[in-house]
């Protein structure tokens, strides 16, 4: 039973991390109609910044905060220099242009930080385990990821639903021409939105760094998942991204944890061991395909926040 609870928490944690990534993607997609493949690069840069700043300042938290601001700045710079010219163009142009940016960032990171990757060690107060229920220990760090991401989700909710900027964002997602016609400084809005998306991606990157890794190309693998979540949840909808992300997080984690056992009962050990992670990874894409066929605009399409 404790195993199941632990895996559920892991699924939640993974899902929330994916939500951070997907939220930025869906915002940019919904408001600027921009397909940004380089979103994964911002995720990677956030992790690298955090590892660097944490090493300089000696503090994990301070390093993380500095990395967040640095990624926000990088995001805004990228928007002004490169993304602006892509608005209004064909989606293929976006795909190609941002694919080029992925290549560029991978090489840039290699140039600046070297090919070896970095590590982001945790301070000892986060490296312990916490008893959340009688008899159930859970990693303090993963718990803090859950708490932080939920806080960010709440922050996004407040931002989008209760502030003026949020209103502009929602309006822009529904009808971007009208917002421009109403005299709002669209350029600034776009830059801020992109920067916000970048910061979210960077946060996701730096938070997973102590658990997983900081290396070149780390964005490419997780980017696909983020896109899948965006499509399932509905382009432009943060609520959709949250629901889809948590669902996908559960599906992936519980799948990887329990699917092999299920298969082992039916097939040989060898087959189960290799087939299971493959099949559980496939489940997510299958889910997306089903959603696309049944409800192409996603579960919560834009306009309903």
């Amino acid at each position, binding site marked *: 039973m*404790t*195993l199941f609870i*632990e*895996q559920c928490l*892991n699924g939640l944690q993974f899902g929330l991390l994916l939500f951070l990534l997907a939220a930025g993607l869906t915002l940019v997609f919904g408001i600027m109609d921009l397909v940004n493949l380089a979103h994964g690069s911002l995720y990677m840069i956030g992790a690298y910044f955090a590892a660097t700043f944490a090493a300089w300042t000696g503090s994990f938290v301070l390093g993380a905060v500095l990395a967040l601001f640095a990624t926000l700045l990088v995001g805004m710079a990228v928007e002004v220099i490169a993304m602006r010219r892509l608005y209004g163009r064909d989606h293929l142009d976006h795909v190609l242009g941002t694919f080029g940016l992925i290549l560029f960032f991978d090489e840039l990171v*290699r140039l600046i930080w070297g*090919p*070896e*990757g970095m*590590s982001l*060690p*945790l301070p000892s107060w986060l*490296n*312990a*385990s916490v008893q959340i229920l009688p008899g159930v*220990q859970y*990693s*303090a*760090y*993963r718990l803090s990821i859950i708490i932080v991401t939920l806080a960010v989700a709440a922050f996004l909710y407040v931002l989008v639903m209760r502030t003026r900027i949020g209103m502009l964002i929602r309006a822009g997602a529904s009808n971007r021409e009208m917002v421009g016609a109403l005299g709002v400084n669209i350029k600034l809005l776009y830059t801020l939105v992109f920067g916000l998306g970048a910061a979210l991606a960077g946060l996701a990157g730096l938070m997973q760094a102590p*658990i*997983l*890794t900081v*290396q*070149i190309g780390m964005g490419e*693998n997780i980017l696909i998942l983020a896109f899948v979540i965006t499509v399932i949840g509905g382009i432009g909808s943060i609520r959709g991204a949250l629901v889809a992300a948590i669902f996908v997080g559960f599906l992936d*984690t519980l799948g*990887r*944890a329990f699917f*092999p056992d299920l298969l082992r009962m039916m097939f040989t*050990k060898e087959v189960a*061991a*290799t087939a299971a*992670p493959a099949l559980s990874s496939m489940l997510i894409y299958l889910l997306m395909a089903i959603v696309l066929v049944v409800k192409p605009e996603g579960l919560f399409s834009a306009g309903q926040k």
Partner: protein
Amino acid sequence: MRKALLAASAALMLATGPAMAQQKSIKIGFVSTFSGPVAAIGNDMRNSFELALDHMGRKMGGLPVEVIYEDDGFKPEVGKQKTEKLIESDKVDFISGYIWSNVLLASIKPVVDSKTFLVIANAGPSQVAGELCSPYVFSTSWQNDQTPQAVGHYMNQKGVKSAFLIGPNYAAGKDMLSGVSATFKGKIVGEELTTWPAQLDFSAELSKAKAANPDAIFVFYPGKAGVQFLAQYAQAGLKGKIPLYTAFTIDELSLPLMKELALGVPGAQEWVNDLPNEANKKFVADYIKKYPGLKPSFYGAQSYDAANLIASAVAATKGNLSDKEAVKKAMEKADFKSVRGDFKFGNNHVPIQAFYLQDVVKDDKGDFVLKTVATIVKDNQDAFHTKCPMK
């Protein structure tokens, strides 16, 4: 323009004369991983290989040596491409390196097809020790199963009755787990193979191990994955509760990152830094001198031996590498001073050697170091040599 190029190259070719009868230099290709979290291993191997070359005055058999290092990026298909480039474009005389069993298996065909001599400095898949053995392929490391088999013996000695096995899902990982299973006499209550190298989050596997409640957990995770595993093992509250037995997880490279997490965790190895022979003392001392802040690991020791093995063959054949049969015989003699002490090959060109128990202790300076505690087995030969048709 193209005509001029054709003419020029034709002239160049004629000028350099017919196929080399005399070597002008020795070209060695070295394929390893120099990027990503496991780059530390590749760097250690390169450092050690370079140190060996320094020790021999950068000459083998009187001829200058050139080494070309290529990065396999930890991917079998990239390793294969780089191997082919070294053979076809750089025309190397020897190839060495190869950390990973899957990269080696993907790359071995072009090497054998081109009759280039290969000295494997780490990977030890069972196929290469068995049915895929070749007169051109030599190993200065081991066969994957040997080390975990030694750990299995040790676990028996310690009275472990039940074990849970965790490892990465690729050629070497599977070999490791089957190696332990082969010698361990207790009950194996669970086996988990994780996606490699993508999966660095072992929470699911650790939860399952905890639930199975074994006497001990055996684990194999090379490089940074090992660091992650030990960290998560501690985070899951298992440290001190269920003892850990390892192979290739704790070494000189990962230990500085693991620190107290590795204290008291035993492992088996064919080389530990404090082996008491002259060659080893010189190797370790000069390595620390040349690369301050670093210590050589077994990966490096194997690469150092690889360089010396090649040098011994070049010296014995007086640089005449076109006589492949003579080179092969010279290599098989293994007439060099290994940092392991005595060194001899089995019929499949895999070393027959001893395995030691290493433990992690705190030295008087407060640093965490590896120490040889005991010899687990002597003159151990891998289990696959009978499958190799060579005599």
